[in-house]
């Protein structure tokens, strides 16, 4: 199943999600569930009180049945809409969890027993430390590390990526995930997790929201909302004595309407949906966050540590130019370079062949006629090449080739030495090509910076995030690439412990650090970083250490993760501001409605010219309920994030959600009022 299919499937199940969400919104009315959301719990209590009062009124033939009924109804709708928003957010995750569950089917495992014996056991019986053998066509029974063999594995159940991946013992690609399928060969796997604790299990829990805990900022925001709720509760409760003193006591329906309109129901209703949707956005980009805390931290990141290779530059270095010596034609150099590299399977070697082909039209057809015998690269000579009929062609590092030609008493020509230095200082890697111990010229290998990466770094800078490139290159090379790519800083000749030290240094200065990594030696740094994104192709140790796993194993995604984190926080802030700003208009709707019967002078405050006190109160309550539904798409999708500085971001969002939050309800309540009058509802 490829990614596009998965997305399509999502929209196909929309109807299913919708119907389940509606059912869930009623299920969530249970007070034990509601009390976790203090704002909406108050609304539920209010709705219960008006319901009781409503029936009491019917029984005693008092009250205004139509108005009382509608207020009660809309109060219940307010609670249901809030539940619906949360259920909708959970719905997408639940649908995804179902797909994942299918991958968790019970399989048989061949457990190695004793020295050479194997036994068949169900996968649910496997414990950490067990060793199993998995052959082509079989499902891997649990998470683990390959200890012997190499195999191609279909991981589409987890990643959604249909192309098989290679997994082999040793190195950084040794981790396998339970529920994936071996396509070829046979591997021996040491199981690393107990049943119920596998990666798949955790992933299901995460996408389902079962293990969702409130994040630190969410807790703080909840305290603010609960505090505001109590403040407005006091304001409404004390209003009744003031009203009695003034000779205009209010009935329960109006008082509870005022309370519900004032307390921050909009953000209270949507807060958990925003959090769930944030996690969901990550999951849809194939990133599994182990906690919501990590997503929040991603928004706060100050420093991004990015590995050069694969993140900033395209994989490996590539041959980009040839510099022949005096009296050597460029074509001859190209041909010699190509011959020396035809058998070289390294990416650099292949790039030389490609360069010769594309730039000089050489295809190396005549090669086979010369009885070639390849000289592979050896750590001793640090050269590779080919011996043809009567020719010896070698390529290698400048000092290695210098030594090689020196054996015949020859030297590297000074102008070539000059070229070598220039390439090196420009961040490239020079290779010398020699034929029969005579230097022909230089091949320049350079890093090719990924397209568009510079713009992304510019955006990050505007957001106040510093990018640091980590590379094993020498400082000179590193500086050159850093300049081309536009990173703010670099760490050259980096060893794993240097990376760790850098993270600790930044953190000591109060900064939050994010990094991506895959190898076992990355694990300590991944654990130390505030946001550590492990590549799915990485080792089990790396995946355990990080707080996120990227199923696509694309380190550039770190930038997207940061953006998603920021988007989550912005959405929360925008809706909080909007919700608080809404109160101004609601006061102007309800206060005149409460008292203009006793004091017609207060009609001046009815700036919206709402038709009657009843229509005013009802309009405010309806607006308050409908705005929740209207904002569900925004809270699920998130406020659009723009990579600009904090000041302009704040100005823009304050204008839209602050000022907009003051104005919108004036318009909305007026329109609802006009509609109510038009339909003769009140």
């Amino acid at each position, binding site marked *: 199943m490829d990614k596009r299919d998965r997305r399509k499937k999502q929209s196909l199940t929309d109807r299913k999600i919708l119907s389940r969400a509606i059912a869930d919104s009623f299920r969530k009315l249970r007070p034990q569930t509601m009390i976790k959301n203090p704002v909406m719990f108050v609304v539920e209590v209010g709705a219960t009180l008006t319901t009781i009062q409503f029936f009491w009124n019917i029984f005693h033939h008092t009250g205004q049945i139509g108005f009382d009924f509608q207020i009660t109804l809309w109060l219940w709708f307010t609670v249901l809409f809030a539940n619906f928003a949360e259920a909708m957010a959970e719905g997408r995750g639940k649908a995804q969890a179902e797909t994942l569950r299918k991958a968790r089917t019970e399989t048989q495992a061949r457990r190695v027993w004793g020295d050479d014996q194997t036994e068949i056991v169900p996968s649910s019986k496997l414990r950490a430390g067990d060793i199993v053998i998995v052959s082509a066509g079989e499902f891997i029974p649990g998470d683990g590390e390959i200890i012997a063999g190499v195999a191609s594995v279909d991981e589409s159940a987890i990643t959604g990526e249909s192309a098989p991946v290679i997994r082999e013992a040793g190195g950084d690609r040794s981790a396998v995930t339970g529920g994936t399928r071996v396509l070829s060969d046979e591997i021996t796997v040491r199981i690393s997790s107990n049943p119920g604790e596998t990666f798949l299990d955790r992933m299901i829990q995460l996408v389902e929201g079962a293990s969702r805990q409130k994040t630190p900022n969410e807790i703080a*925001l909840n305290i603010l909302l609960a*505090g505001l709720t109590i403040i407005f509760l006091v*304001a409404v409760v004390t209003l009744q004595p003031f009203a009695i003193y003034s000779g205009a006591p209010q009935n329960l329906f109006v008082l509870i309407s005022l309370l519900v309109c004032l307390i921050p129901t909009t953000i209270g209703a949507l807060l958990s949906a925003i959090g769930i949707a944030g996690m969901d956005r990550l999951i849809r980009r194939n990133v599994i966050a182990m906690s919501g805390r990590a997503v*929040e931290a991603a928004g706060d990141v100050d420093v991004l540590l990015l590995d050069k290779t694969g993140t900033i530059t395209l994989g490996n270095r590539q041959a980009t130019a040839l510099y022949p010596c005096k009296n050597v034609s460029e074509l001859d150099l190209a041909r010699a370079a190509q011959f020396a590299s035809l058998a070289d399977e390294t990416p650099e070697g292949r790039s030389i062949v490609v360069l010769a082909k594309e730039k000089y039209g050489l295809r190396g057809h005549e090669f086979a006629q010369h009885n070639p015998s390849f000289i592979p690269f050896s750590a001793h000579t640090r050269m590779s090449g080919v011996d043809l009929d009567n020719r010896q062609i070698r390529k290698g590092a400048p000092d290695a080739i210098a030594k090689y030609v020196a054996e015949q008493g020859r030297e590297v020509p000074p102008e070539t030495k000059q070229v070598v230095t220039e390439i090196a200082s420009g961040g490239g890697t020079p290779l010398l090509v020699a034929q029969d111990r005579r230097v022909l010229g230089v091949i320049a290998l350079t890093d090719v910076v990924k397209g568009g990466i510079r713009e992304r770094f510019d955006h990050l800078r505007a957001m106040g995030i510093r990018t640091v490139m980590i590379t094993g290159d020498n400082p000179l090379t590193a500086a050159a690439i850093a300049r081309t790519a536009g990173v703010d800083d670099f760490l050259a000749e980096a060893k794993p412990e240097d990376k760790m030290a850098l993270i600790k240094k930044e953190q000591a200065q*109060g*900064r939050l650090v994010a990094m991506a990594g895959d190898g076992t030696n990355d694990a300590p740094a991944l654990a130390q970083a505030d946001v550590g994104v492990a590549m799915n192709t990485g080792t089990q140790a790396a995946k355990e250490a990080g707080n996120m796993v990227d199923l696509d194993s694309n380190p550039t995604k770190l930038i997207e993760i940061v953006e998603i984190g920021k*988007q989550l926080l912005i959405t929360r802030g*925008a809706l909080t501001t909007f919700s608080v700003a809404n109160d101004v208009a609601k006061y102007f709707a309800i206060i005149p409605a409460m008292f203009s019967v006793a*004091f017609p002078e207060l009609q001046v405050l009815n700036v919206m010219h709402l038709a009657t006190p009843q229509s005013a109160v009802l309009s405010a309550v309806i607006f308050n309920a409908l705005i929740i539904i209207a904002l569900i798409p925004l809270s699920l999708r998130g406020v659009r994030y723009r990579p600009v500085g904090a000041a302009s971001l704040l100005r823009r969002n304050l204008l839209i959600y602050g000022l907009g939050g003051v104005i919108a309800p004036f318009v909305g309540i007026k329109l609802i009022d006009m509609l109510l009058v038009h339909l003769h509802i009140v």
Partner: protein
Amino acid sequence: MTVNGWLQILVFLFVVFLLAKPVGIFLARVFNHNKTYLDPVLRPLEKVIYRLTGVDEKREMRWTEYAIAMLLFSGVSMTLLYLIERMQKWLPFNPQKLPNVPPFLAFGTAASFTTNTNWQAYAGETTMSYFTQMAGLAYHNFTSAATGIVLAIVVIRGIARHETEHLGNFWVDMTRCLLWVLLPVCLVGSLVLVSQGVIQNLNSYATAHLIAPHSVQVTGANGKMTSKEVTRQVIPQGPVASQEVIKEFGTNGGGFFNANSAHPFENPTPFTNFLEMVLIFAIPSGLTYTLGRMTGSQRHGWAIWAAMAFLFLVGVSTVYWAEARGNPLLVGTDQRASALQPGGNMEGKEVRFGIADSSLFTTVTTDASCGAVNSMFDSYTPIGGMVPLVNIMLGEVVFGGVGAGLIGMVVFVILAVFIAGLMVGRTPEYLGKKIEAYDVKMAMLAILILTFITLGFPAISVVQPFGTSSISNPGPHGLTQVVYAYVSSAGNNGSAFAGLNANTPWYNITTGLTQLLGRFFMIIPVLAIAGSLAKKKIVPESSGTFPVTGPLFTVLLVSTILIVGALTFFPALSLGPILEHLMMMAGKTF
């Protein structure tokens, strides 16, 4: 409204603006233990004090210890004042032979002066002996003001310091505040006031024989109105000047006389009036600069100053407009300002101050939690009288009381940063400190307590006979009187709306409680915030950091104050002054 009136208001604000920097720098130097030009005189004195009291000036306290020291100090001082009041009959400097203060009033007054409220349910000249005034009340004028200032300094330290639990030494901060800040200014200021005619003596009250005796209507014991000829007037005396400067400079507001700064012996000339207003704003305005200086973000200090100045201008313009417009019901009366009359609504105002200076003083004294008055709010037009009420309801953060104003403002800053801070895509930060659940909890607690007491007690008062019996005017005006009493108490302002008989057991006890809760239950959560902030690391500033400087932040801060601070009180306001104003326009008065 006249050009002259506006000029006075603008000149006043400009002087306050000019003073902010020097006062702010001086405060920062005093509390950072830097050298000042007063050191040669005061430093030896300070050392002697520490040696006598056994205070180790190098030892810093955690916020809890600081809070306990502050509470202990306030508790002991309050008890002392209560005892002095209850025993003044037997104590010296009582030429008028005033009796002991009754217990409820003594408690209310002790609470009121300890909390820097200076709510006075009595008339000073007929209740308090000179000894009580000097040793009891004036002492509190100094110490309660110093307490407020040092607490603000602790809050600033909490924001400025990082990864520490130490916030300073309460005893050292208090000593330095009294010696370096309050006493020198009061010493000089008192002499200036004396030069203008403010009295300073320990004489018994003088009696003047009226040149033109007049008759007044007196209700006799049998309920009959009889006419009585008045030929003599008793003129109270006392050590007024020494108490006057600290009344304003410490934003205390408790007048020596019942008429407060409307009394010619307290505030004789337009110059003393101007000086007294400047004294009220000097420290609160300067503290914003201290905040900027000590936290290393001077522009943040100015952004807060700008928010305060904006709200001040809105307030003073509204009062001035409402009062200068006069009473619309006085048809056929010339209420225009001219060379011969100030015009407008002059009821309850002094002719030597007129409309502009009265409006200005009223705004200043209620913006700051001072409570000194030079006119009677009860006589203001409904809208004119609403402004002082709203000023206090906002939490007295418009410059505010010495220290307390900045403390309240920091609570609003934290809320503003928390609500809107997320919109820049980071968890909220205030000057590099992350605002987390604990800080929000404490900020909400501070606001919640104020809401509870400022709305709770009035709500009970207006529906219970023991509350309504004190109301002198019916209808919305009466509601305003009651609400004002508690708002003024909770905000530790101490000004009265007048018209409410607050000297009853119910009002004495509940306003006293309100003052204590409004002071200490506001301060303790804020101290907790300071303690929590001091422990945090400072996140270095970047272009992604939430900006707490510039006009944008000022607008945000003002909006937060108005929406969070004022909306809670909107129902009460609409049934009180707003309704009264609308009814007045319709021709109905109370």
